[in-house]
C-alpha cells in the first residue's frame, strides 16, 4: 500500500517537473521561432508551432539595417562586460586579500565602510552617481559606463571570506622563501584560488552584460548604446519590426547562453556564495 503510494508520488513529481520544464522553455522557443519567421508568420491570427518558412536572412537584415546600430551595441556590450569583469576581479580580489591577511589597525573600520555600501544598492544611488559622472564629462562614454561599476562591495566581500579560509601554510612557506605580500599574492595565492575567481567572474560578467538602468542613463548617444539599451529602444519605438526585434534579442543572449552552459558549475558556486552573505 505504502509502496504504491510512493510510486504514484514519484510519477506525479516527474510529470510536474516535465510540465514545468516545458513552460520554462517556452520563452526561448518563442524567441527562436519569431526570430526566424517572416513578419506575416509572427502576426498571423492562425498560430502555428513552426513558422511556414525559416528565414535565416533575418540575421543579415538585422546587421544591415542602418537605422539600428546593432553591431556597434554588441561590440560595446562585449567591451564593457570584459572590462568590468577583469577590473572587478583585480580590484576586489586585492582588497579582499588585504582585508583578510594584512594586519592593520584600522582594517575593521575599512571593512565596515565597504560593507555598509551594500545597504545602499547602486540602483538607488543612480541619480547622485549620474550627477557625479556627468560633471566629470563621462556621459555617453565607455569610461562612464565601466568605471563607476568596477567597485563591487559584494565581490570584495566574497573574496575576503574566501581568503580567510585559505590555508595559511602556503603563504607561510612563501614568506619563508622571502616573498613579500605582493609576490606571495600573485605567485602563490592567485594560482590556487581559481575557483573563486571563476565564480565571481562569471557572475560579474552576466550582470554587466545584462545590466540596463545604468547604461540607459549614461548611454544617451547611440554610439554608446549597449545591446540591452538598443533592444529596449526597439521595443519602445513607434514602429516595431518584430522579426528583427526577436532575432536581435536572440543574438543578444546567444553569447550568454554559451558562457552560461560552459561555466554553469562556477555560476552555481557563485550564486551559492551570493546567498550566504
Amino acid at each position: 500500500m505504502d509502496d504504491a503510494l510512493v510510486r504514484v508520488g514519484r510519477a506525479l513529481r516527474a510529470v510536474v517537473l516535465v510540465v514545468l520544464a516545458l513552460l520554462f522553455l517556452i520563452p526561448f522557443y518563442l524567441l527562436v521561432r519569431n526570430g526566424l519567421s517572416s513578419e506575416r508568420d509572427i502576426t498571423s491570427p492562425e498560430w502555428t508551432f513552426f513558422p511556414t518558412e525559416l528565414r535565416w536572412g533575418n540575421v543579415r537584415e538585422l546587421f544591415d539595417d542602418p537605422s539600428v546600430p546593432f553591431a556597434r551595441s554588441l561590440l560595446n556590450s562585449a567591451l564593457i562586460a570584459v572590462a568590468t569583469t577583469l577590473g572587478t576581479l583585480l580590484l576586489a580580489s586585492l582588497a579582499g586579500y588585504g582585508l583578510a591577511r594584512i594586519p592593520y589597525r584600522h582594517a575593521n573600520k575599512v571593512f565596515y565602510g565597504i560593507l555598509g555600501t551594500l545597504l545602499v544598492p547602486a540602483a538607488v544611488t543612480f541619480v547622485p552617481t549620474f550627477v557625479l559622472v556627468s560633471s566629470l564629462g563621462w556621459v555617453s562614454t565607455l569610461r562612464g559606463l565601466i568605471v563607476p561599476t568596477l567597485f563591487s562591495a559584494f565581490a570584495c566581500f566574497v573574496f575576503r571570506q574566501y581568503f580567510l579560509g585559505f590555508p595559511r601554510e602556503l603563504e607561510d612557506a612563501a614568506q619563508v622563501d622571502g616573498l613579500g605580500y605582493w609576490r606571495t599574492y600573485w605567485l602563490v595565492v592567485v594560482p590556487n584560488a581559481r575557483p573563486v575567481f571563476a565564480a565571481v567572474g562569471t557572475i560579474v560578467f552576466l550582470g554587466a552584460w545584462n545590466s540596463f538602468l545604468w547604461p540607459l542613463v549614461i548611454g544617451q548617444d547611440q554610439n554608446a548604446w549597449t545591446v540591452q539599451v538598443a533592444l529596449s529602444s526597439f521595443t519602445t519605438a513607434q514602429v516595431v519590426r518584430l522579426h528583427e526585434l526577436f532575432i536581435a534579442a536572440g543574438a543578444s543572449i546567444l553569447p550568454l547562453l554559451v558562457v552560461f552552459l560552459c561555466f554553469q558549475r562556477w555560476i552555481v558556486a557563485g550564486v551559492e556564495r551570493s546567498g550566504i552573505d
Partner: protein
Amino acid sequence: MRRRRALWFWVFVGPFAAGLALFTYVPLLWSVGLSFFDAHNTVTPTDFVGLDNYTAMLKDGAFTGSLRTFLLFTAFIVPVTFALSLALALMVNRVRRAQAFFRSVFFLPAACSYVVAALIWKMSIFNGVRFGLANTVLGWFGTDPVAWLSTTHPPWYWLVIVTVRLWLQAGFYMILFLAGLQRIDPVLYEAAAVDGARPGWTVLRHITLPQLRATSVAVVLLLVINAFQAFDEFYNLLSDARGYPPYARPPLVYLYYTALGQGQNLGLGSAGAVILALIIAIVTVGQARWLKLGKSGEE
C-alpha cells in the same frame, strides 16, 4: 614593520576603497547636499530651499503611490517566487533521472536579461492583439483577446510583470535552496525514519523547513531588496513611444522620470533618492534583525 604592513594594506585595499568612496560615498553626500537646493538642470545650485524638496516629495501623490506600487509588487512576487523556487528545489533534489538537465532548464532564464524577457512577454506571450500566445490560448476556449498591459480594471498588467520576474528568478533561488538542502545532515532523516515519520509532509515540516531556515532568511531578504530595485521589466513592458502610463510606477521608475526626464529636477530627484536609500537601509537592517540573521548557524 608595522608601518610597512600599513603601507602594504593600502597598496592592496587602497585602489578599491578609493573607487568605492568616489563612486558611492561622494555621490551620496553630494546628493544629500543637492536635496536641499533648487537644482533644475544643474549640479552646482545656489538656491538653498531647506527641506522643501523633501516635503514636496512626501506630499507628491506620485511618489507615495510608487511606494504603494512597490508594496503591492512585493506582496505578489516574494511569496510566489519563494514558493516556486522552494518547490523546484525540493523536486529537483529528489528526482533520480536527469537531475542536471532539470536544474539547468530552471536555471537557464537567469542568463536572460530583463530587457529580453520583457520583450518576449510584451511582444509575444502577452501581446494584446490576437496573435499573442496568451490570447491564442484564450481563443481556443472562445474567450476574447485581452489587452494585457493596458487594462487597468482588472489590473492584468500585474500578471505580466510578476510572471516575467518569476521566470527569470525562480531558478536562481532554486540553486540557493538546493545548496541549503545539500547541507542538511542525512542522519536527521534517518532518525526520523527510525521514529516512524513517513517521508512527505511531516518530514518536510519538522526537518527540512527548519533546517532551511538560514537559506530562507537569505532568500526573503534578497527577494525584497531586488523587488525594491525593480526597474528594467517595468520600463520595458510598460513604456512606449508615448511615454510611461500613469499606473504601475515603482520607486525607481518614478525617480528616473523625475530626476532625468524633462526638467531634470536633480534636487527633487536627490531628495527622492535619499528617502529611498534610507528606506532600503532600514528595511534591510530591520529584516536582518527581525529574522535574527547570523544566529542561525550558517556560515
